[in-house]
């Protein structure tokens, strides 16, 4: 609803202030191009969605595995932690040639980039969730003679789930952008390619179509994760939510 309102304001101000279409086209133009140009970009769309989903799944799994690994093996943490941070600071322009040189122009280097983007928030959030288990329950588990594996699966893991979902939500948001960026690494199809081409031939309306597509994918993806969260985490008492009265 608010979005629609925003669109209307945008449309009106486009006309009112005569903002040139190449700078910021009115939504009606974008909408029009979005519909008539469907056949132009639906191939790109599919390819990006596939890439995003695959990349996100790999990235999320990797993030969770890293978090678990770092949590259970304390030595690993000190060694790997700095590398995790470093991994988030390799500029794409440096990484890109190396990845292409090592892995060619296939899907692999693209998946590596999405993974790199996605795993980090998940790993950090899950790790923090795993660390902050209630000490009371931890004492119980230890007194009851639970093995480390049991402590993990019966206590730490369920306790970390909300944090994990917090990380998943952040990553889901990033994953689409990650896929688009990875397509700059030389792809033949994908919203990223579509957008670059549109931008280099100054087709601002198409650029905006691309942006809206990216946004819609992200939003749906986020919503999906939020839905999943609701289904998985059912036990929470609602105590914390009614701050209204």
């Amino acid at each position, binding site marked *: 609803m608010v979005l629609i309102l925003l669109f209307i304001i945008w449309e009106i101000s486009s006309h009112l202030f005569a903002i040139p279409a190449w700078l910021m086209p009115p939504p009606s133009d974008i909408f029009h191009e979005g519909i008539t140009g469907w056949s132009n970009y639906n191939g790109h769309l599919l390819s990006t969605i596939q890439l995003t989903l695959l990349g996100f799944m790999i990235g999320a799994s990797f993030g969770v595995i890293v978090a678990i690994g770092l949590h259970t093996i304390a030595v690993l943490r000190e060694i790997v932690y700095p590398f995790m941070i470093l991994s988030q600071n390799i500029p794409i322009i440096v990484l890109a040639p190396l990845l292409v040189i090592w892995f060619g122009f296939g899907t692999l280097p693209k998946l590596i980039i999405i993974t790199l983007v996605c795993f980090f928030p998940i790993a950090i959030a899950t790790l923090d969730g795993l660390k902050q288990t209630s000490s009371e329950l931890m004492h119980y588990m230890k007194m*009851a003679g639970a093995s480390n594996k*049991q402590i993990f699966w019966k206590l730490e893991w369920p*306790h970390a789930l909300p944090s994990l979902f917090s990380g998943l939500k952040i990553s889901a948001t990033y994953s689409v952008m990650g896929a688009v960026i990875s397509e700059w690494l030389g792809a033949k199809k994908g919203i990223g390619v579509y957008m670059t081409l549109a931008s280099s031939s100054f087709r601002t309306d198409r650029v905006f179509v691309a942006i809206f597509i990216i946004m819609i994918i992200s939003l749906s993806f986020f919503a999906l994760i939020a839905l999943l969260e609701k289904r998985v985490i059912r036990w*929470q*008492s609602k105590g914390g939510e009614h701050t209204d009265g």
Partner: protein
Amino acid sequence: MANLSLQSISMSFEGKKILEDIQFVVKDAEFVTILGPSGSGKSTLFHLIGGLYKPEQGHIFLNGEEITGKRGSISYMPQSPSLFPWRTIVENVLLGAEIVGQADKGTALQMIEKAGLLGYEHAYPHQLSGGMKQRAAFIRSLMSPQPLICLDEPFSALDEFTRVEMQKWLMNIWVEHKRSILFVTHNIEEALFLSDRIIVLSNRPATVQKEFHIPFKRPREESLLLTEEFLAWKKEIYNELRVIV
């Protein structure tokens, strides 16, 4: 079979001596109660037996085998219910048994009914009253198969009648399965009614102030509570505790 022996156990927290040279045994199929002022170190003693901490000094043996700092040898009910918020009551009750790999849902449901929690098997802990949580934690410890049960104020949140019910139930299980029980309570009557032996701890730093052998024959009936002998015992222990505080 369970034969616990504590040999000159000492423990400090942050430089404060809590336990000093604690020494006692719990024989096979014996019911021993620990009495002592609040904050004297009863729960800490349990934590040491359960292997959560290592004592500063001293050794703990179970059936001749040293279990100092070793976990999983006892079935334990903590002072606070420590139910897992993401598990339903029946799942919580099964946890202790699960850890040793012997979960039996049928028995659990029976016990839940016996504890007056019928209809709450699939509720989550936050939907229970304080006393109901305590009963769930109590069942959880009964469901663990270890031969030594350590109960830390298991009935403190129960009304007199529910408490007596639970006491009787505990007696039955104890007699039937010949398990050894180490029990903490602040209720002298409860201690007298249940125990073979009562150990009185002094105030900080706690030492074994006195040991009482309770001579009442078993099975004990509720009418015992009104006998002269019982009242005399009660007075004696009361006075012993009064000296401490």
